[in-house]
């Protein structure tokens, strides 16, 4: 009997959740066949069998387990049943389907009687086949077939494609409640947010930035930039660059309190809040102050893709001296972001909106964005925080200043 235990996933992780088994209790597994999936704060990971044999479950799905805790036993002395492999495969597929569905409110109907399948089962009609092809649904995956001998009618195909597009047919009203276990990630996020609120003296200052200059640069150079660097010239790079320059001017915004000390950073590791299918993650652009605009854009794209695919490593998500969060992508006009501890400040970007502004005594339409800076007043004074935000605004409205960290002409005449 070999014990399968929770491996050490990453240095900072001491506890994981057994999110699901990928085999059934009593199944025969091959060496290296994934047995279960563990979920950590940041990612999920499949755990392979260390020997071939029959699995005996110890921990249950949903259990929180410490590193080193026993997941299951594998009896390597058990004989491999004939046709075991095919059977195992089938089980796995079945499981996957089940898990991908949201938690069922009703028990799944299990067909008891074994109906002999017709050779024509799941044969789509010509019209049904076109609908399935266009909906990327395989005929064999159509569950409800109403044609003779399990044939797929046009209506079956429409329903199957609709179901796949997850447009559930809603009941007129419902008073169902669903209870789902909080994911590791959600739990961690919630703990850290409350910690941040309770342990800092947080407040938010606002400003607004006229995006005319940045928009002009993106319109003028966007195509050439994309051609040369194979990445879009977005807004994030300008905000990151402006932040780095402003952080150099106001080091306390880039610092944090460590017991009785203040730790200053001579570098800017910018955390970028990224929304992923599993929730919010905050990967870090290291030494952002040293990167070019293209370098930042490439890094942002790389991290966003990794985040979406759940490929971010622990290293890529820890550290960070300052955070930028862009609620504007979802349409937010103004918000008060929460500091990502132990950092001391977070910049909130918002939606760019055409607004009437008074410029030289005249009303003009300008693309405006509200900026928010939430900061820990224990370490950053009001004057610094406001000046920091004004500096960012100034860099963004006058991008040429970002080249040398100040107006080139002022530098030239040494003002």
């Amino acid at each position, binding site marked *: 009997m070999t014990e399968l235990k929770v491996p050490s996933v990453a240095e900072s992780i001491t506890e994981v959740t057994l999110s699901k088994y990928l085999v059934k209790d009593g199944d025969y597994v091959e060496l290296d066949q994934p047995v279960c999936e563990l979920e950590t704060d940041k990612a999920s990971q499949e755990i392979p069998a260390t020997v071939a044999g029959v699995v005996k479950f110890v921990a249950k799905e949903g259990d929180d387990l410490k590193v080193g805790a026993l997941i299951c036993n594998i009896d390597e002395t058990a004989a491999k049943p004939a046709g075991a492999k095919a059977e195992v495969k089938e089980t796995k597929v079945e499981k996957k389907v089940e898990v991908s569905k949201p938690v069922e409110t009703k028990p799944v109907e299990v067909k008891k009687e074994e109906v002999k399948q*017709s*050779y024509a089962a799941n044969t789509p*009609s010509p019209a049904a086949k076109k609908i399935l092809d*266009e909906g990327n649904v395989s005929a064999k995956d159509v569950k409800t077939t109403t044609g003779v001998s399990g044939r797929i009618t046009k209506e079956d195909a429409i329903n199957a494609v609709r179901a796949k597009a997850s447009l559930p047919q809603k009941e007129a009203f419902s008073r169902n409640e669903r209870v789902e276990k909080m994911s590791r990630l959600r739990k961690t996020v919630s703990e850290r947010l409350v910690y941040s609120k309770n342990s800092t003296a947080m407040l938010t200052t606002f400003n607004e930035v006229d995006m005319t200059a940045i928009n002009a640069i993106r319109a003028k150079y966007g195509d050439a930039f994309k051609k040369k660097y194979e990445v879009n010239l977005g807004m994030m790079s300008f905000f990151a660059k402006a932040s780095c320059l402003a952080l150099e001017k106001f080091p306390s915004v880039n610092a944090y309190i460590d017991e009785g000390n203040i730790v200053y950073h001579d570098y800017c590791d910018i955390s970028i809040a990224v929304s992923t299918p599993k929730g919010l993650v905050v990967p870090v652009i290291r030494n952002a102050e040293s990167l070019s605009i293209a370098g930042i854009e490439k890094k942002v794209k790389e991290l966003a893709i990794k985040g979406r695919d759940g490929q971010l490593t622990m290293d890529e998500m820890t550290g960070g001296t300052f955070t930028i969060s862009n609620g504007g992508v979802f349409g937010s006009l103004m918000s008060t972001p929460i500091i990502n501890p132990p950092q001391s400040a977070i910049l909130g970007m918002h939606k760019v909106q055409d607004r009437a502004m008074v410029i030289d005594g005249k009303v003009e339409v300008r693309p405006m964005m509200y900026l928010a800076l939430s900061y820990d007043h224990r370490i950053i004074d009001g004057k610094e925080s406001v000046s920091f935000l004004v500096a960012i605004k100034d860099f963004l409205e006058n991008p040429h200043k970002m080249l040398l960290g100040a107006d080139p002409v002022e530098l030239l005449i040494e003002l």
Partner: protein
Amino acid sequence: MSTYNVVVIGSGPGGYIAAIRCAQLGMKTAIIEKYDVLGGTCTNVGCIPSKALLDSSEHYHNAESAFADHGIAATGLSFDFGKMIARKNGVVKSNTDGIAYLMKKNKIDIYNGLGSFVTKNRIAVTNAKGEKQEIETEKVIIATGSKPTKLPFITIDKKRVITSTEALSLTEVPKHLVIIGGGVIGLELGSVYQRLGAKVTVIEFLDKIVATMDEDISKELLRILRKDGIEFLLSHKVTGAIVNGNEVTVSAENKKGEKVEVKGDYCLVAVGRVPYTAGLGLENAGLKADERGRVAVNDHLETSVPGIYAIGDVIRGAMLAHKAEEEGAFVAETMAGQKPHINYNMIPGVAYTWPEAASVGATEQDLKKDGVAYKSGKFPFRALGRARASGDLDGFVKVLASKETDEILGVHIVGARAADLIIEGVVAMEYRASAEDISRMSHPHPTYTEAFKEACLIATDNRALNM
């Protein structure tokens, strides 16, 4: 210069259907036709005119040989061949006018002239007067079709040695028509002139006629046509055709290598058709035809140049109008981002002889070759009340079904109205019906369709009810 989303080159059944479907899907569409009238081979010198002449000659033939049985005396019977041809021309015109109307209705621009690639997005159209104009397009559908195959050792003078095109517009009924090729085209035209009094000799290289059809169909059709008076020289290799005044001497070798000579006043060369791309300037678009003259396409019917598609006779597959039509709609929908499909195994083939022959799916020889366990049900029309009432007793329906599952794998019909009956086989097979499924569906009585049901009963369980 006019610019289009799609330009279709060729206005046969493939091309004009493609153009209509493109227009329906919102594309700005143009169609280029070399000739003054739309419709291509099918409408002008193929399917439609041959059916007009087949029906005219069939009426005459019935009056001459079948009416007496029905108690109708038709004395002093005669026909005006010139009027038959004129009627045929009228049928063709109403069809081509119909296509022109459809183009207008769908706001498709027509360009009359030879379409030729300048680049992959630019097509030059040169009309009969030699005037040239160019049009721009995002996508192109090549639908240039095919033309009759020539034999290297025979000169086609289009007067005495003719192709199917000339055979549809003769000024007299031949005395003795010698036909090279026992395929569908040769047999249909042979039937026309045989009924109108010509002696008809068919010389075929293979040992059977309509070679791609099921062997039972081929044998039955041969038997019936021989009975009607058409002479067949099978396993004969034609070596030449020499015109001397009004006489054509066709020479051939039989299986033993002996020389055979057949003298007639007309010789029809009907040995198949070849893809037609002359003057299309494929090379200017970065394309070339393969060694058989075809344009190569992938599963989406797209050529090696993205945005250029090809359909119908000019690509691989059966040279059939309805195959080209399916492909035309398929390409239009594919270009619109849809995912259509064509089940090539379900494209029926038809010979409009009398009786007609029609086929879909696997032949018995296909199943034998592939080692498929099958069962066969064959029901003769002779046993049906409907057939006896009309007097069309020849032929049968043959259903081939899987021995294991009873699924219908092939349907082969020779007999009256086979061309229309075959669609029941197509629908059944598209839905993968079993032979028993068909035998449990009500078929109207008395009709020829009952033969289909009876053949299915035999295939299922050998329990025909009317035999």
